[in-house]
């Protein structure tokens, strides 16, 4: 049975922690903002094959940086199970009479909210840099994509956290999984410029469809048709959540 109170209280804990660790908010915002500022201004006049002449690089970049911020903070949240294990709090959660699915849902709710809040902040800042959202509908659709990206990588983080038992694995996952996912997704440059082999790899990267969907709804330019990337993201996100819950359930908490 799904335990709504447990989901709520796990979410609430995440919110309180998020609000109290200011450094985490700034830390999570800093890198995407550097990318936006330095790449966006530095390469403002650049014309890349694959980007429409009418579209500034910064407009191309904003959806990519949103995807990046969602990818990193969601994966990080999923992996934060490792922190809880390290600091012992995981035992307190696991010994409670709450089924594991509710625990996973509570974590995902908390992680998705914080990731969404961070990327909304980035979106707001990019408005200050001259980015324009086309309509309310496009904003709403963008939020849907952001949620799907976030839950996908929360699930991925949970899978890794369930399979590892110490913090050493954390940087390995970050360097060998998360960064490649980011660069492969076409967040910074159009996929058309990639060699064929990399383009095939990009096709199995969920973030490719996430960023492409965001571009489609925010700036109206995309590689895949909108329904195409939307359906793929829904599938990715469902599969990752189920897999994350499955591995978390299987893992031993001590």
């Amino acid at each position, binding site marked *: 049975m799904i335990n709504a109170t447990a989901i*709520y209280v796990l979410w*609430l*804990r995440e919110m309180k922690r998020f609000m109290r660790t200011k450094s985490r908010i700034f830390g999570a915002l800093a890198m995407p903002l550097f990318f936006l500022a330095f790449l966006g201004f530095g390469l403002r006049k650049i014309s890349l094959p694959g980007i429409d002449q009418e579209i500034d690089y910064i407009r191309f970049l904003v959806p990519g940086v949103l995807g990046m911020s969602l990818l990193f903070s969601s994966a990080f949240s999923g992996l934060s199970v490792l922190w809880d294990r390290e600091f012992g709090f*995981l035992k307190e959660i696991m*010994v409670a009479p709450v*089924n594991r699915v509710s625990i996973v849902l509570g974590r995902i709710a908390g992680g998705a909210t914080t990731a969404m809040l961070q990327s909304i902040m980035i979106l707001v800042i990019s408005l200050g840099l001259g980015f324009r959202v086309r309509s309310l509908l496009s904003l709403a659709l963008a939020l849907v994509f952001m949620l799907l990206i976030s839950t996908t990588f929360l699930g991925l983080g949970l899978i890794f956290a369930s399979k590892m038992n110490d913090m050493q694995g954390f940087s390995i996952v970050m360097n060998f999984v998360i960064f490649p996912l980011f660069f492969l997704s076409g967040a910074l440059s159009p996929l058309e410029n990639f060699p064929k082999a990399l383009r095939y790899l990009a096709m199995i990267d969920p973030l490719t469809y996430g960023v492409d969907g965001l571009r489609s709804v925010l700036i109206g330019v995309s590689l895949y048709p909108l329904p195409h990337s939307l359906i793929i993201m829904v599938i990715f996100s469902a599969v990752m959540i189920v897999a994350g819950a499955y591995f978390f359930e299987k893992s*031993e908490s*001590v």
Partner: protein
Amino acid sequence: MSRDAIRVENLTKRFKGIVAVDGISFTVRKGELFGLLGPNGAGKTTTINMLSTLLNPTSGQGEVAGFDILRNRDDVRRNIGVVFQETALDTKLTARENLEFHAMMYGLAKKEREERIQEVLRLVDLKEKANILVENYSGGMKRRLEIARGLIHRPQILFLDEPTLGLDAQTRRRIWDYIRDLNSEVQITIILTTHYMEEADYLCERVAIMDCGRFVALDSPQRLKDILGGDVISLEIEGEPGELVRRMEEFKWVKSLKSHNGFLSLTVEKGEIRIPELITFAQKNGLYVRCVHLRKPSLEDVFLNFTGRTQREQEASASQRNWKMKRGRMRRRR
């Protein structure tokens, strides 16, 4: 319902080739204060983790509060409180928030929740500090908060894994008194693990001595000590006792006597009332007693008796074992 709070049969846990708990069987009565005593690495925590559903046993059965630890996990969880060996608090939350989190996870309604939180905060004397972030708490305060948390949902059975590890003597005393009061006033069954002999001796009605995953003895502290045969009186004397030793041995109450280099050591029951008798006897026979020493057997002696080692030696060899294992693992990784 049965009278037993816990029933365990042949419980075994193997971790990749190491047997952490090796087929232990025991029962704990309702309302009992039961102790698991042994050195680090004896398998106490693993036992607790299995009974509290955090680890699955490799084989064997366990019943906690009448529920099977494998088949009815959520029922077991609802009926137990656990205070883990390492701190399991969220340090970014306040004490009250930690308690609220727990109460909500256990499904307490708002009103009940507030009452219980007040109640347990008062019990562990943290009412004034309830709104401080736990990261600013001292070790003793954290421990008390954890005990409070373990009690909010009124469990039938409370597991305390090394409740006073690393605390100063004063705090330890206070926690002992809490534990005792809880057990007698609230009628909670308490299982505690410890490697402090005094702790088990002071608190527990029955103690299981654990070594290398097995129980080597299980009885009340007093009876375990009685197995050793009583108190030891050592006399330091001037001159040669000679044949007086033989006459002392003839006293009915002397169980054994050793003479060595001007020291006499006698094993007797109720040592304190035998000392005057011994002194009078010595004086009558012209022996000058320079000093007297009475030693009551401790659980440490019991441990030594059952395992043939002191706890410290035991821990040293265990840590050596662990170290070798770790090294082996590292080598394999490379």
